C-alpha cells in the first residue's frame, strides 16, 4: 500500500467528481457572489427597484440561518427545534448594546456570535452527555427555546422589561444606506455560513457527523470522537446563527422575547432544510430561496388564506414527492432540473411575465420541483419517447 499523500477525502456526493467538475461548483458560486455584491451599485442603472435590496437581505438572512442550522442538525441527525435560542442570543446582544448608545454593527455581530456560541457550548455540554434520542432532543430544544423566551421576558437585565428598541447602529460610511449595509453584511454572513457548511461537509468533521447521524455508537467505536464533534458543530452553527441574529435586530428594531424565541425562526429553518435537503450544504440554500420567495410573493397578493393554504400544500407536496428534499432528488436528474430552472427563469425574466425577478425565481424553482417530482417510471418513458420520437 503505497502511501501517497493526496487531497482530503472527496465530498461524499453520489457521482465521483473528476478534477474539472471539482472546480466548477466553487467557480459558479464565486461568480454568483460577485454578481450579488455588485447588485446594489448597479441597481439604479439596471432599472431594478430598490426593494430587491431588502428582499436580498432577508433572503441572505434565511439562507444563513438555514445553512447554520443544517451544519449541525442536518449533518448530525440531531434536529434542533430550538435554533431560535442562538438566533435570539444574537438579537438580544444588539438590543442590550443599543440600550445606552447606538452600537457598532461589527461589535454587535461578533458579540452575537460569541454569546450564541457560549450558550450552545453550555447546552451542548449538558445535553450530549445524556445521550438523548434524536426525537427527544428535537422537542427538548423546542421547549427550552420557549422557556428561555419566558425567562428573558421576566429578567429586566436582559429583556429590558419586555421591550427593547434598536433604531440606529454605527457602521463604516462606504457601506451606504442602512438597507445597503444590511444587504452587504447579510451577503457576507450568508457566504460564511454556506462556505462553512461546504467545508465541514467535505472534511473529516463532516464524515464524522454523517456517521453519527446513521449510527452514533458504531461511529464512536470506530474512532469518531462523537461528543467533541457534536459540540464543535453545534457551537459553529450557533455562532453563525447568533451573528445573523445580531444583524437582524437592526431590521426588526422592536425586540420582544416571545417573537424572538418563538417558533417562527425555529420551525422555518427546519422546514427550509427538510424541504431543500439535509444531507448537502446546497439543500438549505435551495429550501430557503424557495420558501422565502414563495412567502414574499404570497404576502404581495394580500390574500392571507390563499398564501397559508399554498404554503401548507407545498410542504406536503415536497416532503411526500421529494422524500430526501429537493437537492437529493435533483442529484438524480441534475441536467433536467438545471435546464428547467434556468430555462423557465430566463423566459420569465425576458417576458417579465412572472411579475418581476422574485416571481420569476419562484416559478423557476416550482417548475424544477415539478420536473423532479415526476416518478422515475414515467420519467423514463417520457425521456425515451422524446429521444426515439415514437411512442413505446
Amino acid at each position, binding site marked *: 500500500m503505497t502511501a501517497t499523500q493526496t487531497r482530503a477525502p472527496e465530498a461524499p456526493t453520489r457521482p465521483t467528481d473528476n478534477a474539472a467538475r471539482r472546480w466548477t461548483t466553487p467557480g459558479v458560486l464565486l461568480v454568483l457572489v460577485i454578481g450579488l455584491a455588485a447588485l446594489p451599485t448597479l441597481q439604479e442603472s439596471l432599472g431594478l427597484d430598490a426593494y430587491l435590496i431588502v428582499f436580498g437581505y432577508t433572503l441572505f438572512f434565511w439562507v444563513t440561518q438555514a445553512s447554520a442550522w443544517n451544519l449541525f442538525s442536518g449533518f448530525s441527525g440531531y*434536529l434542533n427545534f430550538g435554533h431560535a435560542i442562538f438566533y435570539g442570543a444574537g438579537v438580544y446582544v444588539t438590543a442590550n448594546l443599543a440600550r445606552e448608545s447606538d452600537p457598532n454593527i461589527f461589535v454587535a455581530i461578533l458579540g452575537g456570535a460569541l454569546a450564541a456560541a457560549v450558550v450552545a457550548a453550555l447546552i451542548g455540554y*449538558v*445535553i450530549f452527555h*445524556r*445521550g*438523548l*434520542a*434524536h*426525537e*427527544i432532543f*428535537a*422537542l*427538548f430544544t*423546542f*421547549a*427550552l427555546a*420557549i*422557556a428561555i423566551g*419566558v*425567562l428573558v*421576558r*421576566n429578567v429586566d437585565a436582559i429583556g429590558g422589561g419586555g421591550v427593547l428598541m434598536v433604531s440606529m447602529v454605527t457602521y463604516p460610511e462606504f457601506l451606504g444606506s442602512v438597507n445597503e449595509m444590511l444587504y452587504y453584511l447579510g451577503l457576507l454572513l450568508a457566504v460564511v455560513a454556506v462556505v462553512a457548511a461546504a467545508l465541514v461537509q467535505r472534511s473529516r468533521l463532516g464524515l464524522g457527523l454523517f456517521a453519527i447521524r446513521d*449510527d452514533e455508537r458504531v461511529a464512536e467505536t470506530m474512532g469518531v470522537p462523537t461528543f467533541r464533534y457534536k459540540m464543535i458543530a453545534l457551537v459553529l452553527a450557533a455562532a453563525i446563527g447568533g451573528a445573523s441574529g445580531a444583524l437582524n435586530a437592526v431590521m426588526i428594531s422592536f425586540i420582544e422575547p416571545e417573537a424572538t424565541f418563538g*417558533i417562527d425562526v425555529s*420551525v422555518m429553518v*427546519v*422546514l427550509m432544510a*427538510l*424541504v431543500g435537503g439535509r444531507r448537502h450544504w446546497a439543500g438549505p440554500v435551495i429550501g430557503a430561496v424557495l420558501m422565502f420567495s414563495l412567502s414574499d410573493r404570497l404576502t404581495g397578493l394580500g390574500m*392571507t*388564506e*390563499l398564501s*397559508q*393554504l399554498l*404554503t*401548507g*400544500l*407545498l*410542504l*406536503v407536496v415536497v*416532503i*411526500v414527492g421529494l*422524500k430526501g428534499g429537493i437537492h437529493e432528488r435533483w442529484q438524480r436528474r441534475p441536467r433536467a432540473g438545471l435546464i428547467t430552472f434556468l430555462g423557465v427563469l430566463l423566459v420569465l425574466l425576458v417576458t417579465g411575465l412572472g411579475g418581476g425577478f422574485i416571481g420569476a425565481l419562484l416559478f423557476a424553482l416550482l417548475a424544477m420541483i415539478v420536473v423532479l417530482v415526476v416518478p422515475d417510471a414515467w420519467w423514463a418513458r417520457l425521456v425515451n419517447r422524446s429521444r426515439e420520437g415514437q411512442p413505446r
Partner: protein
Amino acid sequence: MQQWIQALITGLLLGGLYATLSLGFSLTWGLLRTINFAHFGFALLASYVTYELSTVHGFDPLLTLVATVPIGVALSLGLQWFVSKVKLDMFGTLVATFGLLLVLEAAISRYWLQDLRRIPTENNPWLSNVLSVGPYTMPVVQILGLVAAVALCGFSWWLLQRSRAGYAIRASVENPTMARAFGIDATRLGYLIAAISGVSVAIAGSMIGILYALSPASALIWVPVTLAVVLLGGLANPVGVAISATALALAESFTRQFADPSLAQLVALGILVIVLLFKPSGLFRPTVEVSER
C-alpha cells in the same frame, strides 16, 4: 390553607384538559411513529364547531361533542391513512402535518374570519354551572373534563397493557416485520389508535371552545404544554401522560397562585428540562422501548 387546596383543585381540573389534549399526540407519536402537528388544528376545528353550534344554533356546548367527536375521529383516521400510504420518516411526518395544520388554519379563517370569537355567556350555561364544597368551587364542565381524561387514559392504558389488541400493537411497533410474520394486522390496529386520538383531541377541542376565546392563530398556544406533557410522561404511555399532565398543571397552578402567573410556563417547562436532563426517556418508561438496534 384554603388557597392551597383551591389551587390544588384548579390544578387537577386543568390537568384533565392537558391530559386529554396530550393523549392523542402521545399515542400517535409513540405507536404510529408520527409527530402530528395537525393535532392542534384538529383541536381548534373542534373548538370552532362547538362555538358555531352553541352560539349560532343554540345547542348546549357539551352536546356539540356529538358532532366534534366524529369529526375528530374522521380527521385522525384520514391522517393515519395518508401517513401509512406515504411512508415518511419521523421528521417527514412532522413537516407534512405542519403543512396540514397551515391548510386547516387557512380553511378555519376562511369560514370564521380572523376575528376573536367566544361563546356568549347566555349560550354557555357551563360557565356559571359550579359545584361548591365548602369554600372550594369547581366548574362542573371541568369536572366532566377530568372524568373524560381519566376514562380516556384508563381505557388506553387497559387497551395497551391488558388487552390482546394492545399486546399486538406494542409488538408490531417494536418489531414490525416479526409481528407481520405472526399475522398481526398492524394497519387495522393503527386505525384503532388513531380513533382513540381522534376522540380525545375532539373532547379537548370542545372543552377549549367552552372555556377560552378562539382565533385561527390560537392553535399554537397549546404546543409547548402538550410537548412538555408528552416528553415528561414517556411516549405513548397513557398513565405517564395523565400523571405528567397533572404534575405540570399543578406546578402552573401553584406558581400562578403563589408566585406570578407570568412565570407559570417557565416553571412547567423548567421542570421538563430538569427531568429530561436526568431521565432522558421522561418520568415513566415509554410504552414501547425502541430497542437499541
